[in-house]
Every structure is written in structure tokens, then in C-alpha cells.
């Protein structure tokens, strides 16, 4: 049934709803915790990497975030989804690490950057464009880049991203606006309708 040793409720599996899992974790059910980890680990790892741009740091952050979530699981409202609450912890942990540690600018290149079957010319264009996109993102202030990562790539709403980065929603919108304006300027030649008015 469970590996918890001490069952404090009904059995859990991958289909158990999140409120039930949270209640079980609050009582120390390790199987319920494992289900939550399996369910949210991939996205947590993506968020941490996008905020830090470093794989090992991202993994450390995710590990810390899961432990912090467990320590604070009593603060998690079981009537709400665990995900948003947990991703905020991930983002906060990542931001704190970003602030406190000296950023290691060296980042390993992705091993999944070019898919098979793409012509060398397309691959070259893709490589150049990826480098330009990456360079453009790096020129943004950290808070703007992090907002672009969360909103554009991870598809959080601006309000959700603001909550994760612990800034007011209005401030997040302004930063997003400024970030998009800067990116449009830098990537203008690659945009089909480049030079669009940003008002």
C-alpha cells in the first residue's frame, strides 16, 4: 500500500487529488509526498533553470524547495492546488540563491539544441538565432529576464509571475512591457513584422 510505515489515512497513488495528498503529507505520509514530488519535479526544475540558467544550481534549488515545502506544508491550504504554492517557493529559493551567490556565467550548452533531420543550413540559422535570443535575454535586467522566462516560456500569467518573484503585479507588468520593448529592438531583424509600435 504505502511505504509510510504508519498509515494515517486512505492509500494514495498517482491519481489521488492534491488536497488529499497535502493532508496526507501533513501527517507524514511519505508515499503522498513522493507523488507530489513526481508530479511537480519536472516543471520545478524548468522554472529553477530558467531563473538561474545553471543546471546544478537549479537542481540544488529544487531540492531545497521541496524540503522547504515539506517544512511549511502546514501553511499550504489543502483546498487549493499545491502547484502554485510550491512554485512560488521554488522561485523564491532561486531568487535568493541568485542574489546571494556570485553568478557563474558559464552555462553548459544544451544537448538538445538542434533536432535530428534538420538541414545544416537550418541548424546553423537556428544556432545563430538561438545565440542572439540568448544574448538579448542576457542584456535584460534580472527581474525582466526572469519575468520573460516565467511568462513567455513557462506560461504563467503576469500576476502569477509577480507573486512568485514577490513584486507587485503592476510592477511586473511594467517590467514585462519594458523587457518586450527591449527584446523587440534587439531582435527586430528576425521579427517578420519588425519595428512594430509598442505603445
Amino acid at each position: 500500500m504505502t511505504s509510510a510505515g504508519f498509515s494515517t489515512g486512505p492509500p494514495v497513488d498517482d491519481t489521488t487529488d492534491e488536497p488529499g495528498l497535502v493532508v496526507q503529507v501533513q501527517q507524514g505520509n511519505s508515499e503522498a509526498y513522493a507523488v507530489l514530488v513526481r508530479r511537480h519535479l519536472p516543471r520545478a526544475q524548468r522554472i529553477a533553470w530558467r531563473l538561474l540558467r545553471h543546471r546544478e544550481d537549479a537542481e540544488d534549488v529544487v531540492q531545497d524547495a521541496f524540503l522547504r515545502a515539506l517544512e511549511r506544508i502546514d501553511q499550504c491550504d489543502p483546498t487549493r492546488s499545491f502547484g502554485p504554492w510550491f512554485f512560488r517557493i521554488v522561485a523564491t529559493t532561486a531568487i535568493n540563491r541568485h542574489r546571494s551567490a556570485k553568478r557563474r556565467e558559464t552555462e553548459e550548452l544544451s544537448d538538445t539544441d538542434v533536432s535530428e533531420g534538420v538541414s545544416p543550413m537550418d541548424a546553423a540559422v537556428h544556432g545563430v538565432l538561438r545565440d542572439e535570443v540568448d544574448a538579448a535575454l542576457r542584456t535584460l535586467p534580472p527581474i525582466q529576464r526572469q519575468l520573460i522566462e516565467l511568462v513567455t516560456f513557462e506560461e504563467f500569467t503576469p500576476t502569477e509571475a509577480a507573486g512568485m518573484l514577490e513584486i507587485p503585479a503592476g510592477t511586473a507588468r511594467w517590467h514585462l512591457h519594458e523587457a518586450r520593448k527591449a527584446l523587440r529592438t534587439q531582435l527586430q531583424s528576425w521579427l517578420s513584422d519588425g519595428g512594430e509600435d509598442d505603445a
Partner: protein
Amino acid sequence: MTDNPMDRATDRPDLALDALLRQHGRPVPGAALGNLESRILAQAAFPLAARRRAARLGVADTLAAWVRVALPLAAAAAIVAVLFLSRIDTSALADAELRDSDPGALLSALESDDGSGLAHHVIASDAVSGGAVDLEPR
């Protein structure tokens, strides 16, 4: 704040830009999620065990609290019961004394117009049986 027209203007997504970023942004490098999951679960073992222990102690505390409430109540009930039984015994003793007394005198005491005739009779019986009660006629 969300209804501010300026906010709505700045919220407007740039579809072409977003598409370019998504298509050509650097993908998240693959991670050994299985290994990471194992580390996370291993790290959580102790806190989870502590929670289970706390949950067990919570049950024990609840029982202890019930005992703390129930014991005094039971003691109080026992005291009340003892007092009640002792009163019954006292009444039975008085009855026995009345039974042992002179039926004629008892009857006359009951029939006397003085409401305390019966008590006087009981006291008189005690005096006769060796008690040192000083009975004053009314």
C-alpha cells in the same frame, strides 16, 4: 490595479516576439530527474518520520487530555456516590432504632399534637438505652 487601461496596454502580448522566443530560446537542458527525485525523497525521510511521530503523539495527547478530564469527573462521581450511600446507611440506622423502640411509646409520640413528638421519643429511647441525653419535658 488590474482594471487600469495602462496595465491592459502593457499586458498585451507580442505574439511574434513570443513565438520567436519560444522557438529559438535556449531549451531547458535535460536533467537526471530520477536521481534528483531520489535525493529529494531521501532528504525528506527524517522530516516525514518526525511528522508521523508528531501525529502519533497527537493521538496520545488527545487520549491523555480525555483522561485528564475524565479522571476528576469519575472521582467526583465516586465521592457523590459514597456520600449518597452513607446517607442511606444513616437512614437505615435510624429506622433500625425506631424498630427497636417501644411501639406503644412510638405510637403516642406520633399521635401527640406536638410536631416534635417523634424526635423526643427517639431521644428518650437513646437515653433509656444508656445515652446521657437530658430530656426536658415541654
